[in-house]
């Protein structure tokens, strides 16, 4: 841990040092040396001390009542000179962890009514006022506020920071359990702010430059500080190795500096899990169609964390890629998706019947859930070439619309087939290509026709982002999963069946 203090279990030999702090902090309320000794040595007592450069600077104690699954914070004290740095929070975290370890469901404490700083700390840890004991503290004549925290809530609502750098976007997201607090993607920030005007094309260099600004904007948006983060999550695959490595190195290092656990999660599973941030949960089983520049995959999700099956994927180009390449063929700019959409607005989707890859009867047997867009891309290129050779005008709108129709047709047909074949009446869409309106339209139509419930998360959550990564991290924590170690690397070809790398 990088904090200027360390915490360990208290022992009898700490009595004198503790009593010095006791007197300094509690003056009129100080316990006697004998009482403190009993506390330090009592059964079902858990006392810890914090030290810096060999001197004690604080301590805290817990009284455990295991038969009723409750604990009481007996005391917590930090030397005035060491306050304001998060030591109080740290000591409380340790006590609460011990309470969780002993299967306590509730933790109680009393705090002086004239100590708003302490009250705020406890509130931020999930404590609520339940009672007031009038004039409890004597001779100061101050009321005691009784507070209680219910432990499952602390674990079920962890504050997680997620980092995404699998391809072009640097994303940092912050969630509290299933609540989205911040979702910042570097490309959405002012270009100048990120790079000072220079825009590198390729991932890895850009990620390094975008990292801190994106992190800081996320913290500011969520109105939390790094100290409050319970865990860090990072996408360690699949994707571009060099880009992933930057995120992995960054996330691990952040976790170590905060003394918090890290979870290495699958980028694709992130796309599936992001719906939790809108609905609070993912209804399973569900079919998921993920379509982006780098991926076109059809998944059967029986359980987000344990059972994700790859039904099919592209055998050549990803759908988003096909859009980019066809856009180029048509003389349109990058990225191809929105450009094709604009061009197709006035076009006739049935003007040209472009081939639907892997949809022939023989394909529906061998490659039922696989995709192929290469033939389509070639057909469009060929169509345009022929017109150019003949000196004829290329009807861009019609070509764009017809091409788009072919892509959408294949994507939706296969997704709907997957739902029907597996008797799963739910379809979830994810990935940047979902921004395509025609895809959403046709998906809705065909789902309605087949009694399938269609889920499309908000577009800002469909593209690569850090919030989806944080969401998976939070799910893993809520499920009590072990954090990842510090030795995992970037895996550019990680299969979707690997949800977390330990």
């Amino acid at each position, binding site marked *: 841990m990088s904090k200027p203090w360390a915490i360990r279990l208290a022992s009898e030999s700490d009595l004198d040092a503790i009593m010095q702090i006791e007197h300094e902090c509690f003056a009129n309320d100080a316990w006697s040396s004998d009482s403190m000794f009993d506390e330090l040595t009592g059964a079902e007592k858990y006392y810890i001390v914090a030290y810096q450069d060999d001197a004690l600077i604080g301590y805290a104690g817990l009284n455990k009542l295991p038969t009723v699954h409750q604990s009481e914070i007996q005391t917590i004290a930090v030397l005035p000179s060491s306050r304001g740095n998060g030591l109080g929070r740290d000591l409380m975290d340790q006590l609460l962890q011990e309470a969780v370890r002993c299967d306590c469901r509730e933790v109680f404490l009393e705090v002086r009514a004239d100590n708003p700083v302490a009250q705020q700390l406890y509130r931020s840890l999930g404590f609520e006022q339940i009672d007031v004991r009038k004039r409890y503290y004597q001779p100061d004549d101050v009321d005691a506020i009784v507070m209680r925290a219910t432990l499952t809530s602390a674990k079920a609502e962890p504050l997680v920071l997620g980092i995404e750098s699998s391809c072009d976007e640097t994303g940092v997201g912050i969630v509290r359990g299933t609540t989205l607090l911040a979702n910042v993607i570097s490309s959405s920030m002012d270009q100048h702010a990120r790079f000072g005007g220079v825009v590198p094309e390729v991932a890895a260099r850009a990620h390094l430059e975008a990292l801190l600004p994106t992190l800081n904007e996320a913290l500011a948006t969520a109105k939390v500080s790094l100290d409050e983060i319970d865990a860090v999550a990072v996408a360690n695959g699949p994707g571009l190795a060099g880009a992933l490595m930057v995120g992995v190195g960054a996330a691990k290092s952040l976790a170590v500096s905060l003394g918090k656990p890290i979870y290495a999660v699958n980028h694709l599973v992130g796309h599936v899990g992001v719906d939790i941030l809108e609905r609070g949960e993912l209804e399973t089983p569900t079919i998921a169609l993920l379509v*982006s520049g780098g991926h076109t995959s059809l998944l059967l999700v029986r359980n987000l964390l344990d059972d994700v099956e790859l039904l099919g994927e592209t055998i050549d180009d990803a759908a988003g890629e096909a859009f980019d390449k066809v856009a180029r063929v048509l003389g349109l700019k990058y990225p191809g998706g929105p450009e094709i959409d604009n061009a197709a607005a006035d076009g006739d989707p049935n003007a040209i019947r472009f081939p639907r890859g892997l949809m022939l009867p023989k394909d529906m047997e061998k490659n039922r859930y696989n995709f192929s867009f*290469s033939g389509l891309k070639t057909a469009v290129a060929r169509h345009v070439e*022929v017109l150019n*050779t003949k000196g004829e005008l290329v009807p861009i709108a019609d070509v764009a619309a017809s091409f788009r129709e072919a892509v959408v047709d294949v994507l939706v047909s296969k997704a709907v087939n997957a739902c029907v074949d597996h008797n799963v009446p739910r379809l979830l869409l994810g990935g940047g290509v979902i921004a395509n309106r025609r895809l959403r339209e046709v998906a809705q139509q065909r789902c309605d026709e087949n009694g399938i419930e269609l889920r499309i998360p908000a577009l800002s959550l469909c593209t690569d982002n850090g919030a989806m990564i944080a969401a998976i991290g939070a799910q893993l924590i809520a499920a009590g999963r072990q954090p990842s170690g510090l030795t995992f690397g970037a895996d*550019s070809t990680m299969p979707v069946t690997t949800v977390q790398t330990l």
Partner: protein
Amino acid sequence: MMQLQVRDADEMHALGIRIGKQLRAGDLVVLVGPLGAGKTTLTRGVGEALGAIGNVSSPTFVIARTHKRESGEAPMVHVDAYRLGSADELDDLDIDFPKSIVLVEWGKGMLDDISDNLLEVEIARDHTGESETREVTITGIGERWAGVEF
């Protein structure tokens, strides 16, 4: 240098297998050809011959994909330089060239300083659109490819 006529995707795949059987660590192959020429199809054949693990699909978006091999030997790295602006960006991929078998689509001009040996596979399509046949020209540059046939 050799020239072949390849009639369809299956034959392209088969050519890929023949090429793949001769590849070893340190080899660098550049694939040249327009959209839809069959570069990825060829690479799938190479991947099959090498026992590459994982789906060999176009890496345009991710730029490079590393496939371990069933035998555990030198991995196959499938690169698509389509989105790269310069050779420097190819550097950024940090590929361990001597220990890998690297195939680069759209890589013409990007690989000059990497190795003295290069296998260039150029795939040309029939522009009239009449025929599916591709004309494939394979050129071996450097000692490594002297006398090698597919």
